[in-house]
């Protein structure tokens, strides 16, 4: 029998709720856009038939060979079948940032200073990763 002592904290429940809704929404968008993509009803940036020529390449070579966008450049091709799939991928990848933003006010209200700092730092790390500012060199 579950008692009051074993209940999850307010911030934990809030985090779980946003995660649950966002995950199903992101997954639904991902599956719908993928079927639109493979149905061939929408034009693609790289045609599906040509894709096997490119997926054996290193990512960097693929970008050069197709002049494919990097960072948030895909938003300029959002109407294309292949890049439409990025909407779902970005929802799933960005969900954690949203969860932290939901939890942050609760931590502030509870005056949980160490965790407020940790949450802000995590949001900063994730936003930096998502920004596309970080680039690796390469061979």
């Amino acid at each position, binding site marked *: 029998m579950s008692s009051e002592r074993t209940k999850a904290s307010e911030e934990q429940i809030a985090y779980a709720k946003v995660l649950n809704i966002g995950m199903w929404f992101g997954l639904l968008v991902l599956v719908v856009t993928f079927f639109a993509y493979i149905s061939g009803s929408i034009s693609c940036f790289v045609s599906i038939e040509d894709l096997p020529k490119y997926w054996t390449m290193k990512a960097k070579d693929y970008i050069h060979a197709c002049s494919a966008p990097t960072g948030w450049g895909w938003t300029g091709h959002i109407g294309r079948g292949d890049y439409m799939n990025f909407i779902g991928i*970005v929802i799933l990848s960005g969900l954690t940032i949203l969860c932290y933003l939901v939890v942050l006010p609760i931590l502030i209200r509870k005056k949980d200073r160490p965790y407020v700092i940790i949450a802000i730092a*995590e949001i900063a790390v994730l936003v930096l990763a*998502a920004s596309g500012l970080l680039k690796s060199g390469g061979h």
Partner: protein
Amino acid sequence: MVPHYSKILIQVFIIFTLLCAAGVAFAWADVQEASASAAVSSNVPSIPWWVWPTMLFVVTFVLGILAVLGGVGGGVLFVPIVGGFFPFHLDFVRGAGLLVALSGALAAGPGLLKRNLASLRLSLPVALIASSAAIVGAMIGLALPTEVVQTLLGLTILFIVLIMGIAKKSDFPHVPRPDNLSQSLGIMGIYREESIGKDVEWSVHKTPHGLALFIVIGIMAGLFGLGAGWANVPVLNLMMGAPLKISVATSKFLLSITDTSAAWVYLNQGAVLPMIVVPSIVGIMLGSIVGVKILAKAKPRAIKWMVIGLLLFAGLRALLKGLAIWK
């Protein structure tokens, strides 16, 4: 009845997995042949495009089942097996591997948090360290030559096999005294342990050591796109002293944060192809659902050893591919 059922299941899995492996091997041989002739002619492989995503879906579906029954994350099976036996470049496989592990963690996260098995207080400090390190790992991985990453991946998978084979787990580790850092952060909790019908209070120790190890774990997660449950659980359970259930659940939830940061790096550098990502995510998720249903009826221990065998084979394949011995 149940052991008989288990035996049949194991046999079905072995046959199905072998068939999938054989299918992939035959198709791969055809692609190699096509690539050789394509170099001379039009550079278009003879296999229709839809064969690979379909095969990917089937293989990841099986991997999803095996992952649940073998008690491992999907990412750790996905990267070496798909990287070793499919024609996709390792960059795209690692990018997809991170998103596969991320999706599994996102799906499991809400339930684990609500049941108070995954601890946000334990996760948040660990996640900050691991996710920062995962970004570094992802950047290193995309910068290194493929054969180096492939070789390191092979060695890592073999190391994971070793850990899976010998590591002990402790349901309720003894924590003599929580360390100062965990006390000041309030990393502790209570959860209901249904198997013994009691509320279990837990705390952790050696937090600074654990956090230091999560730097390494984060780098490896980003570098190889593996997910990191194989490393998270031993550190949380054996080193920091969190109960096994808390460690497993918190580890699963942690992946949703750690892998997110690395996934963004792969996404921004063009190392994500929806044609690889979506069938893999859907395949693994459906496979996991079926795996959970099978797990409820039978618990074949042999599956764990089959997963270890599969990983051993995939690890050797990655190592030999990286060393250009088995192309």
